[in-house]
């Protein structure tokens, strides 16, 4: 009875403080929406409208046909610049175009003679990701062109199909990732800062001479941020579904249950940070450091499989990586608990280890 009142008093106080702070409300409710809108529109990994300079030295019907096949979709925007090919690089430096297509003089001649014709395709490698995609498109277009020109009666055609995300929309893949990262950075930062603020202000000392037990204190300090975390992911999901029309294939109950398990990890990290920080700035810095590390090695932008072996091993220690798979799996593929058993096991292990370790450390720090 006494314990329940104590925890309730702490939770109530924490909410009063959070909702009285206009900055906090902005941070909690406006930030996720802004993040979604920004990432939804700006961080579009779909590559389209590749400005391509064309140097057609052949100038025949065949070469023009080849160029038309390039401009048929909106992947490439082709243009024949008024400059000699020797100055083509200047156009890249000035960002006037990101690719160049060079058709040699003997292009049609060789094709008509049934010989191999070479076409040059240069692409701006500054953005390696976009460059790779552009080369892929160019290859596909060339392949299709070959098929049309080939004398074979039944040309081999390649059928591509994107599973789970047929339109290959970046936003479908971003929203779940944002849900996972928001829950991570928000809870880590808020928990650690809320505890450190009390220490910084001296209120922790005042609280510690009351008969409150350490478990009650920890519960009082974590429950509010767990609740805020749930509110946060709900806001992000609602915006994703209502605005970006992302399909939610799997079970929301499973997602929320696993988010609950994941909370032990992030709240534990927040608590741990509070034991190594003396000021709120320090806590914020540690929280930021953790979040950046966790996000970069989580497969948010770059698939973990593409990372070098050493980094891949490091990512095994990143709880967000597993949670990211869980969130994307449930939302996009409708994954079940059975499909995700490895990630779920990881969630439980991380949660148990990190939370109990921080609990012990925290208890020792405050006695």
């Amino acid at each position: 009875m006494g314990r329940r009142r104590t925890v309730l008093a702490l939770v109530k106080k924490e909410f009063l403080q959070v909702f009285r702070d206009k900055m906090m409300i902005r941070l909690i409710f406006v930030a996720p929406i802004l993040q979604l809108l920004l990432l939804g529109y700006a961080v579009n990994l779909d590559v389209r409208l590749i400005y391509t300079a064309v140097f057609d030295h052949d100038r025949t019907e065949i070469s023009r046909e080849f160029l038309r096949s390039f401009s048929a979709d909106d992947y490439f925007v082709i243009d024949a610049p008024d400059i000699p090919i020797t100055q083509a690089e200047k156009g890249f430096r000035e960002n006037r175009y990101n690719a160049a297509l060079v058709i040699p003089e003997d292009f049609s001649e060789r094709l008509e003679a049934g010989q191999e014709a070479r076409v040059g395709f240069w692409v701006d490698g500054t953005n390696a990701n976009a460059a790779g995609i552009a080369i892929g498109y160019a290859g596909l277009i060339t392949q299709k062109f070959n098929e049309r020109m080939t004398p074979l009666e039944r040309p081999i055609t390649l059928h591509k199909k994107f599973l789970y995300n047929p339109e290959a929309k970046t936003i479908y893949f971003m929203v779940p990732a944002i849900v996972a990262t928001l829950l991570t950075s928000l809870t880590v930062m808020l928990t650690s800062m809320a505890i450190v603020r009390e220490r910084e202000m001296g209120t922790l000392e005042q609280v510690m001479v009351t008969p409150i037990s350490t478990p009650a204190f920890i519960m009082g300090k974590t429950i509010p941020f767990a609740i805020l975390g749930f509110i946060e992911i709900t806001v992000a999901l609602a915006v994703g579904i209502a605005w970006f029309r992302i399909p939610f294939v799997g079970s929301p109950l499973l997602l929320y249950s696993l988010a609950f398990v994941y909370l032990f990890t992030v709240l534990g990290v927040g608590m741990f940070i509070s034991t190594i920080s003396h000021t709120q700035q320090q806590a914020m810095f540690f929280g930021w450091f953790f979040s950046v590390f966790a996000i970069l090695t989580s497969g948010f932008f770059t698939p973990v499989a593409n990372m070098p072996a050493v980094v891949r091993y490091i990512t095994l220690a990143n709880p967000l990586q597993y949670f990211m798979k869980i969130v994307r799996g449930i939302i996009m593929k409708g994954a079940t608990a059975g499909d995700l058993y490895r990630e779920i096991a990881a969630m439980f292990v991380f949660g148990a280890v990190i939370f109990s370790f921080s609990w012990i450390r925290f208890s020792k720090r405050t006695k």
Partner: protein
Amino acid sequence: MTPGNTPVPIEVRGFKKLYGSIVAVDGIDLSLGKAEILAVAGPDGAGKTTLFRSICGLVDFTEGKISVDGYHIPKDFEAVKPILGYMPQIFSLYPDLSVEENLAFYAGLFGLSRDEFRTKKERLYEFSGLGAFADRRVQNLSGGMKQKLALSCNLIHNPEILVLDEPTTGVDPLSRRQFWDILADLKREGASILVSTPYMDEVGRADRAIFMNRGKLLAEGTPEDLVNRYQGRVYEAPVEVTSAGMRKLDGLGIRAGRFGATLHIYTHEMVDGGSVTTALEGAGLAPGGVKEIEPGLEDVFIQLMGVEPGNEHNSEGATHD
């Protein structure tokens, strides 16, 4: 001594605390009696806060024994929490919460029910006069009101023992007086109060006092006892002296303390006012009308402390506010 209901709510023996090689407190003994107000007086750095925080189980100490209500500290501190109220030196309530929200928070921590809180709240408002400011945010309260609220939060569970670390520092004179009126009421109701202060005038309102300086105990006794400790005469001269001037006096072997616009000169029994005037003139001061006065607690303190150059006790308004 059995824990609980002992005749000595707080007992400290041979208390010593080192921070690294720096001695913060060097061998303090004190005992707080039931329904007694014991004041611990001394300047900044005397070691009062270290002593008080140790009594409240917040720091480990190097040597000595502390018992609160018969319980060993820090080992059995948990047992004492329900009957102890501690006001830290630094104001430590939530500035972004209102007066009532702060009280409700502490009521929750001590496990009071809603009804218990309502009754208690009214009583606390009654004696603190904070009822009119119940919805005001703490950050918008005056210094005196803040301290009354901090005390109120510590009274929510009817503690038998109060440990108050400089509760009136930085508070206006009227509020300080009101604060001590509240302490007197609490004492009448049976509370035992250990309170530290840098103001000597407040020592006069305690039952007993301890003078501390640089971690050491200088004297102990009732305010009357302590005043009688003064040996020699005290002369007052209406001159304002700079720190450099004080060093000069010290160099000439004149013991003195600054009291705002006046100077107190401490002499042997045989020295008369005329010689004091001459001595001051010799130091380049022009005292107009040196007269002998009754020694106050502050004068006792300065005499006990021994005035050291650059370390003279700065009597922050002890006599004139």
